[in-house]
């Protein structure tokens, strides 16, 4: 059997539910299950590497990835991924752990730059411009393509300073009044203003987990980006906080293109318009969310959605 060991973005742990491990454990289980499960898996494994099924094109493409490959040293983490992201829509990237969805997300605002061994090939354009071109400053790119991380990571500063951080470094506000208004609007749009307006000078870390994540979202939209990348933004939150963030995404997609990586198929189904399913570094299937969840065309997608792998 051809075993491919994957490491996704280094912050993401390889968990025990990856397919390779599954086979090993199956081999130790009963003979009967082995006979049933093993041929099925081999069939799926050969499928990986084929063309992406579904529709990679978006109606109103804003960010376009063509044949993107990512290597971490000798490790080929992303293989030939092409995907279009349209304006004012939420695209969800799903797939088992270590499938490369976070790595792909980090390519979109060049967060992989800071990893010495990472190498990206292929073309990614934002509004028609290559983001990996020499003249493109990653700083300017990240101002246009913001990012929200898995774990809420407010800076050890006051709530106000957290939100004002982006506008300050980018010089977006001419005076204090403008900065105040940016902070207020951002907090309001992140649905946090009511809860914190009396304690803007408290440290950001004093908030609850869900509030912290909304603070991070406020911090991101304060820069007024065009695309927001979210890397499993709810995985560290409880269901109620998760629901609030999901509502927030619904509102935000009126203005922004949003790409969200999620572990939860339910979440993908709730918030996204399109879904992209990643498997072992390949983009297996992309299509409208309804279609993927009701009528997946690829066997692997179906197995994932029905819970057979994942």
């Amino acid at each position, binding site marked *: 059997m051809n075993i491919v060991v994957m490491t996704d973005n280094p912050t993401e742990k390889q968990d025990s539910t990856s397919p390779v491990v599954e086979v090993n454990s199956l081999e130790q289980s009963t003979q009967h299950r082995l006979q049933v499960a093993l041929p099925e898996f081999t069939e799926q494994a050969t499928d990986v590497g084929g063309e992406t099924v579904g529709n990679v094109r978006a109606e109103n493409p804003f960010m376009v990835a063509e044949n993107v490959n990512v290597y971490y040293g000798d490790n080929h983490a992303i293989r030939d991924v092409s995907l279009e992201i349209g304006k004012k829509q939420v695209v969800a990237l799903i797939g088992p752990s270590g499938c490369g969805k976070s790595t792909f997300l980090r390519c979109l605002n060049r967060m992989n730059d800071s990893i010495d061994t990472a190498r990206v090939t292929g073309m990614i354009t934002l509004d028609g411009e290559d983001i990996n071109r020499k003249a493109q400053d990653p700083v300017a790119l990240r101002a246009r393509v913001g990012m929200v991380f898995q774990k809420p990571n407010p800076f050890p500063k006051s709530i106000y300073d957290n939100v004002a951080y982006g506008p300050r470094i980018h010089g*977006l506000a001419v005076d204090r009044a403008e900065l105040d208004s940016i902070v207020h609007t951002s907090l309001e749009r992140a649905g946090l203003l009511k809860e914190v307006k009396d304690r803007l000078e408290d440290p950001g870390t004093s908030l609850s987990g869900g509030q912290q994540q909304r603070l991070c979202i406020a911090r991101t939209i304060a*820069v007024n980006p065009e695309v927001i990348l979210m890397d499993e933004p709810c995985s560290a939150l409880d269901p109620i906080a998760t629901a609030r963030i999901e509502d927030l995404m619904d509102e935000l997609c009126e203005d922004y293109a949003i790409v969200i990586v999620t572990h939860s198929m339910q979440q993908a189904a709730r918030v996204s318009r399109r879904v992209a399913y990643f498997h072992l570094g390949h983009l297996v299937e992309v299509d409208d969310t309804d279609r993927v969840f009701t009528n997946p065309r690829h066997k692997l997608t179906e197995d994932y959605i029905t819970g057979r792998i994942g």
Partner: protein
Amino acid sequence: MSDTHSTAEKVAAGLGRRRRKEFVFRTLGMFATGVGILFLAVFFATLIGNGASAFKQTFMKLEVELSADIIAPGGELDLVYADFDGLTRAALRDKLPDASGRSQRREMYRLLSAGAGYQVRDFLKANPHTLGTTQTFWVPAASNVDMLMKGNIDATIDETLRPLSDRQIAWIRSLDEAGDLESRFNMALFTNGDSREPELAGIKGAMMGSLFMLLVTISLSFPIGVAAAIYLEEFAPKNRWSDLIEVNINNLAAVPSIVFGLLGLAVFINWMSLPRSAPLVGGLVLTLLTLPVIIIASRAAIKAVPPSIREAALGLGASQMQVVFHHVMPLAMPGMLTGTIIGMSRALGESAPLLMIGMVAFIVDVPTSFTDPASALPVQIYLWADSPERAFAERTSAAIIVLLAFLLLMNLAAVILRRRMERKW
């Protein structure tokens, strides 16, 4: 999304300034890292430039007539009081017959080291039957001759400003041309004790002093440090007393070393009346100084032993003591040894506390026991660095090279141990 464009524009407007700042910051960082490394380079270049020549020494060829008239005028050779210098002086007079008058001769004798006579004496002691024959000796030249040959004395400046007179320089040149001067490996540096004469001064006494001290230190601080670490990690109840010990150890590691010297002076010398200047006392002080280092390293090594191993042994019915001594300690031993070596290398380089307990005296004899008066390698460096002679500056650098070589060896050993220790549990 009306102002999207303006965001991108505003960001772009500030980019130039921010890139410049980034560049400046990065350059500053590079510069700062460079400063330390540059210093290291300058330091080693200076050191080797100054000290390398001290490993060579100018020797003078003398045909010495072991004349009984001079050294055994009564017919009996007295190895203590006989005038061996007279022999070497006579030999030098034969080589440089143009010196006339007492003052010129005295000038000429200054080309000889005081060690020349001793060398002849030692030869006669070993070969008494050679009395009356003529033998060829290579004796050390005076340090000023050595300095001139090494180019450390500028012969072009005014005569009164340099330690050698024009006449002496002429003699040296003629000896050199006759092939009577030769640069040889300076064994004296490693076989002699301290001396007032640079060409005779060696670091053997200091090295032996350091060795005795380190023996005392390692034989006390390793067992005590390991025992303390074992108690604190494996047995100590978590209460105020163990907290106190913990705080204490961390603080002791940062107490200035000179304070340990005060402790040594007051407790070991004044109160316990142990001998001053003795490696025993030095070793005791250095033990107290290195204990915190060893305890901290040993505790880290013990902590790194996974609890599963303890549980496995306890599960088989071993007592806690057996678990520790049969399982934890062997596994933690490389880490403990690494910590001990690092502690020892710190002890070897330490000098301030030794000044307090009298190890700073001028000691010619090489110590042979733990209670003999002794110096230590770093203290010897301190003493020589204070001497005004150019020849001592050279030897100081040489002694530093030797000290650093020892430290390097110890640290290499620690690094190798650490590599070995890196095991996957």
